[in-house]
């Protein structure tokens, strides 16, 4: 009787562990978020409220591979703005093709911030401080990165366009 009991207990435990291991390689679940406007209009609102300190220019989707390693085919809609001098303000807002692409893009942008942080550490302490609190935001298929002295305010405006 004890043997049967032990076997059953082991079986129950295996069942429990199997549940834990089942998510080792999870496919990214498709998360639908509701964005109330286009990325272009969100950027307009941000640039109206927070003018960039430096001369700026826009990147196209074709530039994203060179600047961030992001493949064009992962992008459905985007705005990417950089300051002309090359290492100060950066705004990237992307609607990816799906949540998996968004995760991949967010990872690359996260690596970009880390890389910029390393470059600026002993070079521009003010910029380094900004980079230390820069984040990449991901909501379903939407990814955003703000590197700016006003990045918190930018993120706040961006967030206001998303509903649950």
């Amino acid at each position, binding site marked *: *009787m004890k043997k049967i009991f032990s076997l*059953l*207990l082991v079986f*129950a*435990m295996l069942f*429990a562990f199997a*549940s*834990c291991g089942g998510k080792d390689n*999870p496919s990214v*679940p498709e*998360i639908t978020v509701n964005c*109330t*406007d286009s990325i*272009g*209009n969100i950027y*307009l*609102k941000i640039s109206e409220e927070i003018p960039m300190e430096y001369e700026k*220019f*826009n990147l*196209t*989707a*074709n530039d994203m*591979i*060179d600047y961030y*390693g*992001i493949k064009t*085919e992962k992008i459905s809609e*985007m705005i990417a703005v950089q*300051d*002309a*001098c*090359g*290492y100060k303000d950066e705004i990237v807002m992307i609607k990816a093709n799906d949540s998996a692409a968004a*995760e991949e893009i*967010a*990872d*690359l*942008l*996260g*690596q*970009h*911030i880390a890389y*910029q942080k390393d*470059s*600026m550490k*002993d*070079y*521009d302490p003010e910029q380094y401080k900004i980079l230390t*609190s*820069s*984040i*990449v935001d*991901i909501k*379903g298929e939407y990814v955003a990165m703000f590197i700016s002295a006003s990045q918190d305010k930018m*993120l*706040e405006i961006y967030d*206001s*366009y998303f*509903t*649950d």
Partner: protein
Amino acid sequence: MRKHISILLSAAALLGLLSSCRITLGMDELSTTAVQTSVDSPLFEESSSEAAPEASTEEYTELTSLIFSTAAVSASHTVGAEKVGPSELEYSESTEPPTRKPGRTFPNLIQKNKYKTGKEFFDDVVFVGDSVSLGLRNYVTNQRNKGAECLGKAQFLVAGSMGYGNSLGAIGSANSIHPKYQGKEIMIEDGVQKTGAKKVFIMLGLNDFCAYSVDTGMKNAEKLIGRIIEKNPDVKIYVQSVTPVIKAKEHGRFNNQSIDAFNAALKNLCNANGWTYVDVASSLKGADNCFKDEYCSDKDAQGVHMSYAGCKVWIDMLTNKYC
């Protein structure tokens, strides 16, 4: 006894189910949170559903050219497709001589074609540099995105604060700085190989001339260029001078005299090794031997970075010299 066993079994099974549910829920939560690069930053602020602002027609028209649509990718980046009018014939990329018509001659054009190689010169160039060259890359990208021809198909391996010295260390090693190629950090010599470039225009030294003695700076430069050549034996090396600093931002050793001394040593190094030295600095200096304020984008900060006007002077100098 049997009753006890079934109670125990039920409890174990229930525990198993509960733990699996909790883990699944945890994964879902994880996938909706932000990728965080700072532990103390708020990620998901409370969202609100405020009405979106209406864009003005003018702003919207401007934006539609910037917002990406998948179908537009291949069409949006045409380089060198400008129409060339008669007055611009002398800058045409065509190697064919212009058709002579009775009564019309093109003496200037013929003369230029005889000596210049054309804008295709820059098609197999890679620019290697620090934050000053980052500014050049951004200027070039901006011009190309507007449909203008700018330095052919030249590519860039640039990184803020990179120098001859700190680019020598292995990737990930302390205080080393490397450029990125397609989003991945890479050693300069490997990056040059990836780009397939045949001409390497290097502009480093602004982050070296204060950190090292001129001798050590030259040893580092020689080492880096040696590695580039070893990995890419067919490339031709062009060493660009270190660009100047505005007068208001000179301090201690960080001055134009030190930059001049570093550049003089770079020139000697080039002469000794058969590399081409390119004097960019002179085009950007005023009568006081300092960086002209109008070419500087960060007069209130470091006083060394290039404004668009400065980038234009730099590019004009290069194209006049090589095209």
